[in-house]
């Protein structure tokens, strides 16, 4: 059921390379989340994402310290390996210190390709945050107009919103079918399907998701006793999701920056201050965004109770935003009567036996 998604992921950026050759259009990488892809689509380019990979790190260590997060280090390794040669410009968001520094490294290493930085403010002053975001967005649009040679028009923006809205609605249905029938959706299949969208034009990914979702919605409800919510930045290494399937741990929902958190934002409604602010700060709480009005602990406890699930905190070495929240989240979940465990992975990673023991033990105590 998920084979075609797995095949796309196995080719890395191969699918987008083919698309570019076929269409001659530009490719813009969002590094990695929270810049509205509708803007890139409206300019006739294809938004892609790089979220770290299972690649041995060698060249990247020349530019980044070994204590940088392994997501950042493997993204740089991919770039140095030529995996991003088809990318015409990069839009970095200031989600964390590592990501911001990576933008500067990219500026030096790839001078022929524009690096646009979309700075997300850390402030409790909502009005000034909105104005700053609007300035940032408009500057980014101007930069992308130069890259693509296109002009950003309201008409094209509306079309892009419709495309991304249709895609988002399918992703929402995919999440919903898994919540309703987690026994019918493997963890590896689910996240393979989502990941394939990182390297495909939105319309192609939408065309692939449609039949999948329809098929899954017709599946008979299967038993799924041990229910899990995974929380973190991104479920990498993706192979690790197979362990959940093998152990009979059913991922019923997630709180991932590349998953439910991202899709909870919906599409960018407008390029004004309120529109971009609602896009970035709307939706569920995120460890990389400063928003004192949101309480991730309460949010996760509520989500876990609603799904009758335990929570697995999926930590990638050395992701500081997630690591900072881990002790408090663990305590809050325990206080809320929600079983919780965490593990730390890195990229690349080969052996999962220690994590197998933790996950199986977690299942045994649930």
């Amino acid at each position, binding site marked *: 059921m998920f084979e075609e998604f797995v095949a796309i992921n196995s080719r890395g950026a191969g699918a987008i390379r083919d698309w570019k050759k076929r269409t001659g259009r530009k490719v813009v990488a969002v590094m990695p989340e929270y810049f509205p892809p509708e803007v890139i689509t409206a300019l006739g380019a294809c938004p892609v994402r790089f979220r770290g990979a299972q690649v041995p790190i060698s060249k990247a260590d020349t530019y980044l310290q070994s204590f940088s997060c392994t997501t950042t280090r493997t993204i740089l390794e991919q770039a140095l390996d030529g995996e991003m040669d088809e990318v015409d410009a990069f839009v970095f968001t200031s989600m964390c210190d590592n990501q911001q520094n990576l933008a500067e490294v990219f500026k030096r290493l790839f001078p022929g390709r524009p690096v646009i930085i979309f700075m997300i403010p850390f402030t409790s002053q909502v009005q000034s945050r909105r104005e700053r975001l609007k300035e940032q967005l408009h500057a980014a649009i101007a930069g992308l107009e130069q890259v693509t040679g296109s002009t950003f028009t309201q008409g094209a923006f509306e079309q892009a919103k419709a495309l991304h809205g249709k895609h988002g609605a399918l992703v929402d249905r995919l999440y919903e079918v898994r919540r309703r029938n987690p026994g019918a959706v493997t963890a590896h299949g689910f996240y393979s399907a989502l990941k394939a969208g990182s390297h495909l034009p939105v319309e192609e990914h939408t065309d692939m998701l449609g039949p999948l979702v329809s098929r899954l919605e017709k599946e008979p409800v299967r038993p799924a006793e041990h229910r899990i919510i995974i929380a973190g930045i991104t479920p990498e290494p993706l192979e690790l999701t197979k362990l959940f399937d093998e152990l009979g741990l059913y991922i019923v929902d997630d709180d991932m920056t590349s998953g439910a958190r991202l899709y909870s934002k919906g599409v960018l409604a407008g390029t004004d201050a309120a529109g971009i602010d609602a896009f970035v700060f709307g939706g569920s709480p995120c460890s990389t965004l400063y928003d004192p009005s949101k309480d991730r602990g309460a949010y996760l406890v509520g989500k876990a109770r609603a799904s009758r699930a335990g929570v697995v905190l999926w930590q990638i070495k050395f992701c500081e935003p997630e690591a900072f929240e881990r002790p408090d989240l663990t305590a809050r979940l325990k206080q809320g009567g929600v079983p919780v465990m965490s593990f*730390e992975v890195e990229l690349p990673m080969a052996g999962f036996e220690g994590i197998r*023991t933790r996950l*199986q033990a977690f299942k045994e105590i649930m």
Partner: protein
Amino acid sequence: MSYFAGIDVGSLTAKAVIIDRDNKILGSHILGIGQDSLKAGMDAYGEALKKAGLKREDVTSIVSTGYSRKRFTEAAMQKTEISCHARGIAAVFPSVRTLLDVGGQDSKSMKVGGEGRVLDFAMNDKCAAGTGRFVDVMAAALSLTLDGLSDAALSFKEELSLSSTCTVFGESEVVSLLSQGQSVPDIAWAIVKSIADRLVSLVKRVGIEQDIAMSGGMAKNRALVARLEDRIGFDILVPPEPQLMGAFGAAIIAKGR
């Protein structure tokens, strides 16, 4: 009469225990893993059967545990060593509520409920700090056996400290201390303090509640147990065969099937 077996194949040793309906250990055996964990587990099982005077067909049910638990297709069930150690220790000390299992490759702390039910647990990360491997490497650097390191540590005179809990850097520090002319007992005590302090942090992650017990091969290290008792502020119960608690617990689980 029914008999039950538990086979615990860890990172360094394979352990097998045969019990009867009353949890009485009829036979047990511990073997080094060598290059083939499945063979080591089966050999340990064979030896345990021999000691019990039983044949394979006499055993009603087997549960495997430890890192290579998946490889035992003959086992009716594979359980984690976390659950098995808790069940084993509860059979020996029913009052235990906190358990620390320090094995060759990893360490686990557990909050234990009635009848050995695990309520919460924490494990060390994948590096060797805070595990038996750390002590193994340090003992080798001092040309001591594991027992020799424990004995030496108990006769220390001067308080030294290792600044690193990393096995690789720790070994370099030990070599430096030797070259500075520090005595072997003082260095051995510094090694014990280093691993004990890391283990205290691991236990605190699940919360310390009496009674407290320790299992795994490192529980045989008297210096380590003494240092842990000092840091935790409570006595630590150690079963007669701490290394066998995983296999023993697995056998008890096999009986309950």
